[in-house]
């Protein structure tokens, strides 16, 4: 599961990766014509919409790709860099950048690209941006309030506007394609002639069709976290979902037996887990089941994963999600930790014993109620909450 940094690719190697990504980035920008300021500002005066075409095509391509990778569990969205939202600085900073764009004719990335092929104006622009950053840095105490105002966290745009991810993605692609058609018409009108780059119209009709199909596919690639968390809100669905059950006696037996392939997935809060937990248990919150950390724990070969919470419904919710995510060896502890405490840990010998079978059960439970507390006590020093993967820092 991505991202590959820092587990597969180390932090040092990441700098080498950065260099190669940069080479590809610079190459594409230059090939697209982003090394000339006249072309870059064309969209603001209507004579050349290359920037809009390249920018929007790249944006929707990557966006659909992220949606797809997230849906198929190949990318852990919860730890990739989502630009945090600080409303006022985003808007005011953006408007100042817009001013810089029409005055200077570049943005930072394109100025480096143009400077590399010898454009002197781009080199001057870079000097200017250096001064701009310096002014911000020196005056930081003055700007700090506005810089940190109106913080919305790692907000996603579809949540902000109250749509599903699929619908927003679909609309964004459609807006992009619409903008391509309209701006081409504007461009032709302003330049007084059809753009020779776009003469085979039929090709563009076909491409529009393909874009529409791809956009539509976003509806079939919902964000699984959003979808499954919603599905398990339905109690009757969760109760009737076919899951393997492990009884208190069986679990107690396996713990005492020190079975290697037993793994208890404790979905209670971390505080509760630290206070009291069974041997062989790992703490994962339901929300974290979708991530990279959970994958490492749940895909260990031939493990029997018993979900544990205070009550069975909570266990079932988590187990249903794990099952839907394709993890194997899933079961729930029948009756939850509450039943386990009653039947095993705090077991009291009943006044009368009816059958022979009941007698065996009671004998086991009495033995277990003595042994298990010792095992729990011994396990206490082993409880180290997992190191959680942190969100990657990005941005400029």
């Amino acid at each position, binding site marked *: 599961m*991505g991202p590959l940094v820092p587990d597969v690719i180390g932090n040092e190697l990441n700098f080498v990766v950065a260099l*190669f*990504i*940069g080479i*590809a*980035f*610079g190459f*594409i920008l*230059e*090939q*697209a*014509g982003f090394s000339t300021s*006249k072309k870059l500002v064309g969209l603001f*005066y209507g004579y050349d919409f290359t920037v809009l*075409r*390249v920018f*929007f*095509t790249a944006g929707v*391509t*990557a*966006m659909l790709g*992220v949606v797809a990778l997230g849906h198929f569990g190949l990318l852990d969205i919860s*730890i*990739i860099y989502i630009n945090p939202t*600080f*409303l006022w600085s*985003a*808007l005011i*900073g*953006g408007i100042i*950048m*817009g001013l810089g*764009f029409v*005055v*200077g*004719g*570049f943005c*930072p*990335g394109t100025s*480096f690209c143009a400077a*590399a092929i010898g*454009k002197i*104006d781009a080199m*001057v622009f*870079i000097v*200017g*941006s250096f001064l*701009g*950053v310096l002014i*911000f*840095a020196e005056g930081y105490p003055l*700007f700090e309030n*506005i810089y940190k105002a109106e913080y*919305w966290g790692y907000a*996603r745009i579809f949540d902000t506007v109250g749509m599903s991810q699929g619908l*927003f993605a679909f609309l964004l692609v459609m807006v992009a394609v619409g903008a391509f058609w309209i701006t081409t018409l504007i461009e032709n009108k302003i330049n007084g002639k059809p753009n020779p*780059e776009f003469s085979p119209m039929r090709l563009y009709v076909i491409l529009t069709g393909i874009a529409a199909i791809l956009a539509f596919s976003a509806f079939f690639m919902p964000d699984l976290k959003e979808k499954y968390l919603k599905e398990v809100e339905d109690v009757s669905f969760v109760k009737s979902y076919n899951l393997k059950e492990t009884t208190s006696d069986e679990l107690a037996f396996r713990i005492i037996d020190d079975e290697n392939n037993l793994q208890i997935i404790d979905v209670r809060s971390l505080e509760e887990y630290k206070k009291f937990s069974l041997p062989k248990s790992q703490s994962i919150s339901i929300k974290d089941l979708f991530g990279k950390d959970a994958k490492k724990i749940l895909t260990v070969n031939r493990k029997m994963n018993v979900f544990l919470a205070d009550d069975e419904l909570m266990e079932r919710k988590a187990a249903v999600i794990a099952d839907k995510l394709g993890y194997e060896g899933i079961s729930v502890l029948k009756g939850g930790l509450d039943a386990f405490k009653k039947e095993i840990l705090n077991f009291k010998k009943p006044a009368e014993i009816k059958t022979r079978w009941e007698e065996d059960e009671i004998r086991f439970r009495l033995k277990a109620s003595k042994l298990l507390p010792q095992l729990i006590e011994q396990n206490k020093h082993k409880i180290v909450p997992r190191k959680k993967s942190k969100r990657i820092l*990005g*941005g*400029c």
Partner: protein
Amino acid sequence: MKPAKYMNPYLAGFFLGLLLLATIYITGRGLGASGAVKSAVVATVQTVSPEHTQQAKFYDEYLKEHQNNPLKNWLVFEMIGVLIGAFISGLISNHLTFKLERSDKIKNQTRVVAALFGGLFFGFGAQLGRGCTSGAALSGMAVLSTGGIFTMLAIFGGAYMFAFFFRKLWI
């Protein structure tokens, strides 16, 4: 040899999109540019006046994040790559020049002053907005970040708002 034509913009956009997607998949972060300028600023100030970087909060925070080595930053390596990549592209497409590009209607000095101030506004704005066209707008769109998309709208909206007043620079 005549300079080669530019790539079809949709094809270039598609490649750029795939590159951005690969970047997110591999590194967990998007592309960027202005952050490299920030590194250079901090490194310069650190060299010129080390005491100042300890007193001023902005530098202090940045240096703490970078273990006192401001140039050891992902974006610095990426932007070195951009210079190399753009140069290679310019070389094979015969775009290499050494000139000050400007509209025929303005003087060289005007273009230099405009480029300097344009850069200054952009550099300042990119700090306030936590990223530029690459780091905030493009990468923000790819991960459907509210802040990134707002910044994108503000950049293009702002540019259209001011375009009329600076039209003499271009047309």
